[in-house]
């Protein structure tokens, strides 16, 4: 920390020593090869500490200087020019530097490489692609924009954990999230706790801390070759974020200001029935408060008769259709960023301050983020020092509880019979503070937002210091230290007087988490050596990665003094600590050969040692090689082809697992039994002392071409990725005494195609239309599961109802949804029992896949003078979803389909157990012609609710994901008020669902409850919102 400060001091003190005295003021204009004025050109005076930059028209003024002084004009990508001062005017024309025209991208270990030399796929997008519409999690803004990248809009709230998967899942059950690297610092993106179908609060991941306004570019390294130098953490690809560098205009520091306001509006996807309400006695509306206390919608017709509500008030028995609209608010997100930056030949700095304030659509729920980001680069002779520092404070209040049942306000709303006015449940508690509700085992949604308290905060510092010393002009030494540290705290309590949790006297959970991720890296490199036609770059290095986490969890239940919600006030206190520590040491090297600037070969190798694996089997060496052939430079091609490159690569990456998986461990209970300590097996996972590192191997072929001077182009990749010896945690039979086991198992394969098409159909003077389209197809297969699984499928998740599981099966796609199907005869007809109820199978059968395999992003950018319009359509296919909301609404009678036969009874279409046509007519509300012994229509639908097959829906969709209309204010206007640039945009997100399966009622196709691998289960999640607002960006 001290060294950071020291460096900062150096950086700022140097910047403040600009002006000096002399005799001559030189003025002039710097133009480029086309004659256009060049803003931002650095001008220095040899031997003097005097610097200027050109203004936005290319004009400059520097002085005082003396005749014969040498002015140096430099600009990235242009050949620097030295001009001897001969008078008061010096106009300069800079020529582009052929060598520097190279498009440079940041690759692994933050080494800049010329893009055309890369033998693997790297996709970069500009920061403006992610900061025009600002939501708390940056991942939202990547959806549909990068081929091969699957962004899951997990339905867990605005600041919840998001899911991003590159080229399909590479691990069967482990982490499939890519490594995020910000300015060279690998950051900790792991979730702080997310729900599964059984319910919970999603505490978000490490990505809410990124401020989109600080981002210059995002590069996605998709394959293993691209990531091999990051080692095991990169086995799922790497997302490299480069933050903005400092810039000066007119020799002055620049000030940028960005402000964005986004409104969130609930999209009510529910379409429940509003013809029948709560059950009373017989076919009457509830006549007592007891009858009005029910979550069943199997009652009487909603026809305005008087009915008694749960609270004893008599109201007409009418439908209340806008409960969702009245319960939720309009949410909003206000983001402001101000940054100051400057640069000269020696120093470059940028500091930004940002603030995000989100008000959720859920009453009383908020998320705030405040951040400071600092980045400096300084040159001291042969030493270059880069320092970056990011400090963010995040605070969330009342993140929603999703999944599960009790405590989930969405559950409460979904169950609410059509005759109940949600506002009759206000404020959620009685005068004595105790919760009341409309039915047994269902929380009052207002109690959930008014009395249940949930708050969390995170203070996070990420920083890196990178020192590079050029020993000679071809030999360098680079050392780097990075650290990502956060301290997160959270507190959640449910007061005493709640109705339906396990602890009527209340419960509290507090957790304090501290997390450290540190990297220390040293590289010795050789650069730009020419041996004949061969260019050579080479480096070797070592890295030490350490991850540590301490959690103190203080929970308990039953508040002694009512109204005091502290740990000390609990009757039962259950503190638990959890400490985790792991290290990975690595040694690596890279050799890059360039032949004639059109043929490039890159070979890398890395050896990792993992602390988490058995000592005798804890390391693995893995190589990578990639080849890039720029055939448009090698051969003379027709003029129409402006660029062409073929690339091929193959690589391996290994990986480990979380710590302490090798041996059985024993815990002591929190409470002793008198003087007896109590000790028991402290893990529900069967540990494994024979674990090996996993190995992922891939190869990739790609072709990139531009035509007609870049008017049309494409980039296509084919990849194949296999993972072997994956470290899998699978559910095992409870009769083992455990719940899960960890083992090396199986082989999985992903192969796919990624396609980027871009073009500029129209380009006239003022009008330009750009089209860009990304398409991804990933096919995925579990090749073998290996001997360890003993024919038992690998179980990844279970729905709350238990009706559906997500599991892996040999020969099938990753992440299958399995559950009960209807029992059918050979002709496929449903079999009914003597009571007229459909029968179902007794074994879980394959139903569908929960992971999308095809994705399409289609964007159009129109610019007309100062106006710009951007639209993005995002589409995904090939996944299904099991909707527990719909299954529940069959059971409780809220689903519209349950209206069929409700009054007049029905006969299920199919056969009876002896094979004849089923003729059993069920009992409806009013029919008298039912078969003797027949069940009721209600029982029929309740039976159907157990048949998972019925609630599997195609989750394909096409959404209008993003629209922004921007206006750039004319400079002539702005210069009068001293503003350099100003842009105003109207933005919108998730504006429309252009297509979805029409059978999928009540829920959105993107409604997965979990952000992990268990995709394809929906249960009473956070609803979809439509977002619209505006953004203003100003530069001074």
């Amino acid at each position, binding site marked *: 920390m001290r060294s950071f400060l020291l460096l900062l001091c150096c950086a700022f003190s140097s910047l403040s020593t600009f002006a000096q005295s002399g005799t001559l003021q030189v003025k002039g204009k710097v133009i480029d090869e086309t004659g256009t004025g060049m803003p931002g050109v650095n001008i220095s005076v040899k031997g003097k500490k005097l610097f200027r930059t050109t203004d936005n028209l290319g004009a400059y003024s520097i002085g005082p200087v003396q005749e014969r002084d040498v002015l140096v004009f430099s600009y990235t990508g242009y050949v620097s020019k030295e001009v001897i001062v001969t008078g008061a005017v010096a106009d300069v024309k800079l020529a582009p530097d052929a060598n520097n025209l190279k498009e440079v991208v940041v690759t692994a270990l933050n080494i800049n490489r010329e893009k055309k030399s890369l033998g693997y796929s790297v996709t970069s997008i500009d920061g403006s692609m992610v900061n025009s519409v600002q939501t708390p999690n940056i991942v939202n803004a990547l959806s549909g924009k990068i081929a091969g990248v699957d962004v899951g809009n997990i339905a867990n709230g605005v600041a919840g954990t998001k899911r991003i998967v590159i080229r399909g899942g590479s691990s069967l059950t482990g982490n499939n999230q890519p490594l995020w690297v910000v300015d060279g610092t690998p950051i900790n993106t792991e979730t702080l706790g997310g729900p599964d179908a059984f319910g919970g609060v999603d505490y978000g991941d490490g990505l809410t801390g990124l401020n989109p306004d600080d981002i210059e570019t995002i590069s996605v390294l998709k394959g293993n070759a691209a990531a091999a130098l990051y080692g095991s953490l990169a086995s799922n690809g790497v997302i490299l974020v480069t933050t903005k560098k400092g810039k000066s205009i007119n020799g002055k520091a620049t000030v940028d200001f960005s402000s964005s306001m986004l409104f969130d509006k609930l999209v009510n996807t529910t379409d429940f029935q509003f013809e029948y309400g709560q059950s009373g006695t017989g076919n009457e509306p509830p006549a007592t408060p007891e009858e009005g206390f029910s979550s069943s919608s199997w009652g009487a017709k909603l026809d305005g008769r008087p009915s008694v509500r749960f609270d004893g008030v008599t109201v007409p028995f009418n439908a209340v259709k806008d409960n969702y609209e009245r319960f939720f608010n309009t949410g909003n997100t206000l983001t402001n960023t101000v940054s100051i930056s400057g640069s000269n030949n020696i120093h470059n700095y940028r500091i930004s301050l940002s603030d995000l304030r989100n008000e959720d659509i859920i009453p009383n729920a908020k998320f705030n983020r405040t951040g400071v980001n600092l980045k400096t680069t300084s040159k001291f002779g042969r030493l270059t020092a880069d320092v970056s520092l990011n400090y963010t404070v995040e605070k969330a209040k009342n993140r929603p509880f999703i999944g599960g049942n009790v405590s989930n306000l969405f559950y409460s709303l979904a169950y609410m019979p059509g005759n109940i006015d949600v506002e009759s449940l206000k404020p959620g508690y009685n005068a004595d503070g105790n919760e009341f509700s409309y039915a047994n085992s269902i929380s009052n949604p207002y109690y959930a937002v008014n009395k249940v308290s949930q708050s969390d905060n995170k203070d996070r510092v990420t920083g890196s210091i990178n020192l590079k010393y050029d020993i000679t002009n071809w*030999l360098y030494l680079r050392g780097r230290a990075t650290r990502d540290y956060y301290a997160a705290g959270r507190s959640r309590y449910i007061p005493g007087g709640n109705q339906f949790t396990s602890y009527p006297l209340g419960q509290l959970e507090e957790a304090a988490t501290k997390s450290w991720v540190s990297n220390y890296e040293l590289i010795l490199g050789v650069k730009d050596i020419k041996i004949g036609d061969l260019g050579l770059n080479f480096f070797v290095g070592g890295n030490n990665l350490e991850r540590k986490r301490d959690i103190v969890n203080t929970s308990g*239940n039953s508040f002694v003094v009512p109204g005091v919600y502290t740990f000390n006030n609990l009757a*039962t206190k259950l503190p638990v600590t959890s400490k985790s520590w792991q*290290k990975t040491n690595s040694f690596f090297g890279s050799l890059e050969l360039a032949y004639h600037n059109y043929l490039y070969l890159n070979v890398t190798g890395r050896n990792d040692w993992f602390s988490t694996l058995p000592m005798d089997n804890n390391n693995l060496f893995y190589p990578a090689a990639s080849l890039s052939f720029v055939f448009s430079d090698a051969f003379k091609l027709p003029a129409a082809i402006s660029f062409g490159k073929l690339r091929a690569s193959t690589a391996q990456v290994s990986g480990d697992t979380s710590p302490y998986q090798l041996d059985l461990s024993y815990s002591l209970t929190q409470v002793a039994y008198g003087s007896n300590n109590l000790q028991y097996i402290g893990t529900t996972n*069967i540990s494994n002392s024979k674990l090996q590192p996993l190995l992922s191997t891939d190869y990739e072929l790609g072709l990139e071409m531009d035509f007609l001077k870049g008017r049309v182009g494409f980039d296509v990749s084919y990849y194949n990725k296999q993972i072997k010896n994956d470290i899998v945690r699978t559910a095992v039979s409870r009769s083992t005494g455990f719940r899960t086991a960890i083992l090396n198992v199986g082989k999985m394969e992903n192969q796919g195609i990624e396609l980027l098409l871009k073009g500029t159909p129209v380009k006239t003077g003022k009008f330009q239309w750009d089209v860009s389209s990304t398409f991804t197809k990933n096919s995925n297969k579990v090749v073998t599961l290996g001997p360890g699984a*003993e024919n*038992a499928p690998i179980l990844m998740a279970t729905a709350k109802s238990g009706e559906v599981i997500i599991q892996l099966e040999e020969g099938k796609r990753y992440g299958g949804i399995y559950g009960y199907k209807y029992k059918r005869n050979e002709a496929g007809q449903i079999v009914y029992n003597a009571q007229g109820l459909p029968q179902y199978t007794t074994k879980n059968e394959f139903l569908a896949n929960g992971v999308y395999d095809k994705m399409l992003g289609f964007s159009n950018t129109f610019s007309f003078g100062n106006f710009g319009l951007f639209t993005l359509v995002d589409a995904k296919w090939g996944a299904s979803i099991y909707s527990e909301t719909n299954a529940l609404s069959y059971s409780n009678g809220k689903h519209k389909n349950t209206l069929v036969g409700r009054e007049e009874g029905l006969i299920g279409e199919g056969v009876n157990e002896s094979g004849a046509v089923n003729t059993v007519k069920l009992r409806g509300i009013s029919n008298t012609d039912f078969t003797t012994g027949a069940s009721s229509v209600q029982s029929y639908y309740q039976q159907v609710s157990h048949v998972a097959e019925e609630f599997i829906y195609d989750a394909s969709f096409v959404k209008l994901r993003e629209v922004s209309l921007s206006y750039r204010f004319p400079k002539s206007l702005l210069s009068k008020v001293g503003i350099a640039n100003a842009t105003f945009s109207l933005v919108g997100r998730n504006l429309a669902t252009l297509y979805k399966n029409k059978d999928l009622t009540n829920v959105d196709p993107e409604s997965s409850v979990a952000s992990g691998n268990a995709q394809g289960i929906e249960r009473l999640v956070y609803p979809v919102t439509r977002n619209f607002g505006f953004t203003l960006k100003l530069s001074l």
Partner: protein
Amino acid sequence: MKRNIKNVAVISLMALTGVLSSCDKGFDKVNVSEDFVSTPNPEYQLPDIELKMLDNTYYTLGDFVAPFVMQVTNRKSYETLNVAGGYHGYHFEWIYGNPLVNVVDFIERTKADPTRVNYTSIGRIIKVYLAHQLTDLYGEIPYFEGGRGYLDRTFTPAYDPQDKIYADMFKELDEAIVAFDNAQRIPTTADIVYKGDITKWKRFANSLMLRLGLRIMKADAVNGKKWIEKAVAGGLMQSNDDNFLVKYLPNSSTGGTTNPTSNGQAHIFIRYPDNYRLTSQFINQLKNTSDPRMSVYAMLPASRTAYGAGSKDPAKQKGWPAFGDRAEEAPYSSIPSANRLNYSVSNNATFGRYDAPYIHLSYAQVQFQLAECTVRQIITGSTTAKTYYENGVKAAMDQLKAYGTEGVITPAQATAYLNANPYNPVDNEAALEAINMQYWIETHYNWYETFANMRRSGYPKFYDQLAPVTQQPGNLNAKMPRRLTYQPDEVSTNPKLQEALKRQGPDLTSTRVWWDKP
């Protein structure tokens, strides 16, 4: 420049060898958890196992087993309770995941140390107790390979036929009893039940053997008789002092798995004062015989929202009919809620406490079983069935003192009860009915045992009095549930379940376990 390259190469090579040799230095220390220990202490393991023999959650017991034996109703219909899945399997989960896996580990570790032979024997007896309860409830279970996920890396344990399980349980009890050795270490502190009293452990093991022997009489009379005789000869429990009784501590409201020091069974009444009621079958039985246990077992609820002391006047107690909400569409609340306060719940000073003790096997049960054996002439001896019966009733009343001052029943009260309800059966049928009715009452809260004994003996015959019920799909016209259904995850995690279903029959409550012959 060439020389430079050479130098660099040499330096790198030196650096490389230096780095490689120490690349995993200290990793063995890094990968040791600071939160846990890797070597257990048998002195700490044993009390934990003894406490966890009781399923601390109420799910299976309160929601299924207690209603099945018609002592408690959760006001759910017979049909609802007989549908497979859900919490039927929770007890399976608890036993395997808590006491069983730990006792298997405990046996394995103490076995390696000859001085701990008494610990091993205790472990083996406890394991038999846990396994018999499981197999009685579910039928075939993974017995030989169960609980060995870590030890043998058996992830899909095979299901074993119940006759093989029973044969091994008898063998285990027999061997464990023989292996006890007073000269070796005695777990005087760790054994929170008998304080290391080997004699009492032997009596408990023999009494368990008697229970198991009687259980299989219909399926295998030869072996049943053999083991009953062996148990009697080996020495059974002789008084309430020999009861296998686990004491629990107060001050915990966790119904979950985190705190084994409290008795989670009473959770059903404490947590849900409005949902569970004692049945009319149970209350009427006590009422009709002026049983002094009425006030020990029952009280009226004080309120619908809080479980507090209500009237314990025996005359005021009233039971809710078992499966009371039987009409298919009747809402939960078909009986006006205020009236619920007129129906009895567990006495909050005796059974309705987190620190209520739990009796796994009692002297009274032994006496009732001896009475039955005598009636059925499985054993012969000078003691009459009547004596055994009366000893049993007296002991059953006396043992309630363990539940606190409100549990105390004087010998005079017991005698008065026996005088008012004398054991004078007209025939063997009536004798067995009387004996097993007492067993039914005595095993209050030990409903796993009540359920097994009801199925075995056919008494009490409350199911005969139920109106014919609409059968739900899958429940093959069973008048009474004959078992619980398996833990639902077994379908997906253990393919070997299918073999058990093939042998035993479908996974329904109507399927009978091996010893349960019609």
